[in-house]
């Protein structure tokens, strides 16, 4: 069983951005994404998920390094200034590289 390295991009941001981000990501050639509901705290204060305006999502994309970098740069440029958002990248091994 051979494994291949890809990037996992994780974004935590405001739930209101969900559909916008999904469109962005698809346009930038990611082959998929996974979303979970989240709450948290950061520079823009507590986001406790008690109601819509106050909820976070946690979005993950597994993709090649280039795509991950491009998406990260795009999100940072377009949303960091105005939205509660963090993102980070890590290395993951996948078994079927053609899926990502």
């Amino acid at each position, binding site marked *: 069983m051979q494994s291949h390295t890809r990037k996992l991009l994780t974004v935590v941001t*405001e739930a*209101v951005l969900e559909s*916008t981000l999904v469109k962005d990501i698809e346009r930038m050639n990611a082959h998929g994404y996974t979303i979970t509901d989240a709450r948290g705290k950061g520079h*823009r*204060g*507590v986001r*406790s*998920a*008690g*109601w*819509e*305006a*106050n*909820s976070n999502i946690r979005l993950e994309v597994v993709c090649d390094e280039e795509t991950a970098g491009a998406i990260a740069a795009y999100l940072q440029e377009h*949303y960091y*200034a*105005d*939205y509660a958002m963090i993102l980070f990248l890590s290395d993951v091994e996948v078994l079927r590289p053609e899926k990502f």
Partner: protein
Amino acid sequence: MIDPIILFFLLGATAGLLRSELRLPAAVYELVSIVLLLSIGLKGGIELAKQPFMDLLPQMLAVVALGFFLTLAAFPVLRFLGRFKRADAASIAAHYGSVSVGTFAVVIAYLGSRQIEFEAHMPLLLVLLEVPAIIVGIVLARGLSRQTRWKSIAHEVFLGKGIVLLLGGLLIGWIAGPEGLTSIEPLFFDLFKGILALFLLEMGLITATQVGSLRQYGLFLIAFGIGMPLFSALVGTGLGWALGLSIGGTAVLATLAASASYIAVPAAMRISVPEANPTLSLAASLGITFPFNVLLGIPIYHALAVWAHTFARG
């Protein structure tokens, strides 16, 4: 005598301020708002069926104009007196030019328990009053630029949860009529005030979370959060009287004018004017204006309506 639903609001606010563990799951909050929105729509729809639509046109147009006017009136106050950034002033103004369905539900319950009649098509006016402020707010923030993506804004505004459920309820009530709806009355009508009580409990909890931000943004926001609804209520009372609404109807319109959005407008502004700080507008709308209206405003607006009608007659 104080209405028990107000007590639920106070319970929630107290629990929140004391940092109790009490919390309603997000799914419960959504269920409760969905049922409220549908109930209000259905009730309005039933009555709409009883009158020729054309007779309502003048009121509908007047209410749309009211939405434009209130937003435009709030903006300079926020920009020049409040010294807010352009985007922030525009966004807060949009919140106050639009309406709060929760406040509407409370004024309905208030009049209901005092057996004061009001024009039954008010939910239609509620829907109409939600929209213009959003458009004005975006234009105030952005100018009339070509780049503004009106199509996606229209989608955001007209297909948001609130409008879809209110309008959907209105249409269903209209088509099915009072008899058609008897079978669903137990859920949507009999439980209305109980569900409103749960909603206000949650609103109390949410309101309490805004106190921190208020402390941060200070006196002007508090003053605006009380002064603006009083001004809007005056305008609303005047308009209600001019349109020939009953005392109850005038009180409802005044309350609608006085109320500030905390669902539809925040969502639209977050997408269309992202540089506006949502903490500011929510602190004002949820932390000040909602409790003010629910606890003190509605009786005041009712008194205003009575006064306007007596004054006019006398």
